């Protein structure tokens, strides 16, 4: 074993601005400092509430870096300065933040990876809606599309995910306190209603996401214990089905059939999500008629490239297969890949593609009786107020 270890990543996960992520993170930082651990603040949002500001005051702050962009000055975290200072623990607020162009790295989570690689422990904050694979689910349940996301594999690397919980009522009270009452109370009530239900859905998702993180870590731990052959020492807790480490069935392997259209992004996110829950391997393929893909218009080729890049960003292996028969080519590869499940998109309504598509799903199902074929939902926003 090497005596140089990667730093530990702790994520404080919330569901909205104002639930108290930064406050809890700084509380832990202060606690560590009082125990004699070398803690610095690498980055923290300066527009915080007074109580939060007070917590940060006793901690050493690494000055931010000023970066000029389009005639204005922007402040970003100075990862290099933190590396030079090399504390035991660095506090880095707002994990999903996108750095201003001209920064060394485009995302703050990339800056954090650099710190972790150097053996520095990092405490950071994010909201559940910034987990990449949850994007569609969030959109579906709240109608909100989030732009700044963190890839799941980065979130999964966290050694600790800590839920920061507050009830939506308390959060809304917090936000409204000090805010002038809107003149139109009915308007306000309506806003309140949509916000409260939206916040409730996000809160539930944050709880389930944290539970998943806890379970995944236990499973890794149990496997580690397994590997060093100390199963017997776990004897007292060995009976617990809740922490059953490995499924008795063979591990699942997912294969996603990607197309050039935008619906593939949802397919890829869903595949990633299911693979994470099942601890399954996951790959994505496109079946081209010819190696040059000359059958595809240029715009489609670009769109396809975007889909495949997106899949790789979520750590899904991608492959372009060549074959005139899509179903046969896909299923042959699925056999080689030892896929247990195939995921395909729902076809668009009407048109030639649908006619072809329907036959395609039928053919995949009949060629792959040993696998399960899943037609992935079209997760649009399905919420509507019936009456008010």
């Amino acid at each position, binding site marked *: 074993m090497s005596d140089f270890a990667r730093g530990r990543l702790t994520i404080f996960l919330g569901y909205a601005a104002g639930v108290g992520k930064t406050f809890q993170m700084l509380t832990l930082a202060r606690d560590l400092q009082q125990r004699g651990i070398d803690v610095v603040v690498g980055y923290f949002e300066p527009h915080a509430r007074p109580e939060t500001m007070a917590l940060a005051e006793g901690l050493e702050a690494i000055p931010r870096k000023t970066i000029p962009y389009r005639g204005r000055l922007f402040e970003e975290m100075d990862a290099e300065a933190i590396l030079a200072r090399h504390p035991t623990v660095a506090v880095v607020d707002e994990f999903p933040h996108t750095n201003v162009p001209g920064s060394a790295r485009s995302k703050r989570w990339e800056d954090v990876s650099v710190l972790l690689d150097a053996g520095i422990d990092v405490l950071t904050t994010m909201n559940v809606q910034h987990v990449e694979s949850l994007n569609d689910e969030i959109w579906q*349940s709240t109608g909100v599309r989030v732009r700044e996301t963190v890839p799941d594999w980065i979130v999964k690397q966290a050694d600790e995910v800590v839920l*920061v919980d507050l*009830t939506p009522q308390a959060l809304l009270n917090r936000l409204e306190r000090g805010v002038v009452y809107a003149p139109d109370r009915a308007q306000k009530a309506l806003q309140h209603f949509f916000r409260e239900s939206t916040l409730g859905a996000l809160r539930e998702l944050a709880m389930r996401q944290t*539970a998943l993180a806890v379970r995944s870590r236990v499973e890794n*731990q149990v496997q580690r214990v397994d590997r060093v052959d100390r199963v017997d020492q776990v004897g007292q807790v060995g009976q*617990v089905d*809740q922490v059953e480490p490995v499924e008795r069935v063979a591990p699942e392997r997912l294969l996603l059939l990607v197309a050039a259209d935008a619906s593939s992004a949802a397919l890829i996110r869903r595949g990633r999500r299911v693979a994470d*829950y099942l601890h399954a391997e996951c790959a994505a393929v496109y079946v081209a008629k010819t190696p040059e893909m000359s059958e595809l218009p240029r715009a489609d080729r670009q769109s396809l490239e975007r889909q495949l890049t997106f899949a790789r960003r979520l750590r899904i292996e991608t492959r372009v297969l060549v074959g005139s028969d899509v179903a046969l080519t896909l299923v042959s590869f699925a056999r080689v890949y030892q896929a247990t499940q195939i995921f395909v998109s729902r076809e668009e309504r009407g048109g030639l593609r649908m006619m072809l598509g329907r036959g395609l799903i039928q053919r995949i199902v*009949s060629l792959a009786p040993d696998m399960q074929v899943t037609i992935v939902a079209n997760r649009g926003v399905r919420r509507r107020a019936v009456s008010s």
Partner: protein
Amino acid sequence: MPDLRPDPEALLRQAEADGRGRLKVFLGYAPGVGKSFRLFDEGRRRHERGEDVVVGAVALELNADLQRVVQQLGAVPMLEAGGRRAVAVDAVLARHPAVCLVDDLARDNPAQATRPKRYQDVAALIDAGISVLTSINLEEIDEQQPFIEQLFGRRSAETVPQSFIDSADEIVVVDAPEDPSPLGEIAGSDAQAIALAALRERALLLAADAVQRQLDDYLRANRVDASWGTQERILVCMTPRANAAAMLASGRRNADRFHGELFAVYVNQPNLTAEDRSALARNVMLARAQHADVSILDGHDPIAAILEFARQRNVTQLYVGHNLRRTWQTRVTGSLLDRLIRLAKGLDVRVFPH
């Protein structure tokens, strides 16, 4: 069964008319995660905003910070007998604050007290129109005792029924790293660490379920036709010849994996043969053995019946069988599958060949 639940708006109106207090529970997964801190911190904030807050119960040992807060808020002295302490309910009622802080909900009262349990005292305060903030650990919930016994080989002596926790207007999870040391030294053995994580997962899921229930109620009260994909809900469609055993086993595994729910249905049709009926009866038994929530649907249009059921239960994944033999009849089944796939737009449809 959503329809059996009381209308929350009616409940709210009733609560207002009755002048009942509100119950807010801080739920932790283990001692030391900071429940009391959160409880008293909220009490302090409310006090600073001008609410009339008193302390009704504190844990035996308080750190200096919490002692200061308790002093600031003012406490109604607790009753004490035989080494046990109880909320002085009559004194709190006489004082009648807007909010009473009751730490450590699961404690038993002294033997001669009016009510044997602290949570019963809390219920009395709420009935009298006093709102209560309280705290509890997962291991102190009665229904969790079989789980706790599996983990630790013992049960908690003092517990509160789940139904009381469920009656809370708000539940807040107090989460904390299992191992706050940056050096990753988890206290104790691997076994303890695993048990702690299992408790933590349970507490998070329990709270998520409570939030989901409240959300459903809220949406129904506001007449919103919503379909939330937050919790995975799997619906297995059983037909006489489908490989129901495989579908149900997979459904169970996936439902567990996703911390989701499993439903199974078949559509009652008039033209079933005796053989079909016995196959379906077998399938229902299989479904019950997998702890699926089994329903029998009626309707001449099986697909419409299935999709309506799926919509009502916020199903996210539909499992259907598909016959591979291309006879005249299966061509018809094939087109049924087509139709199902086409209509089940908001669902993942998983096809099981047979």
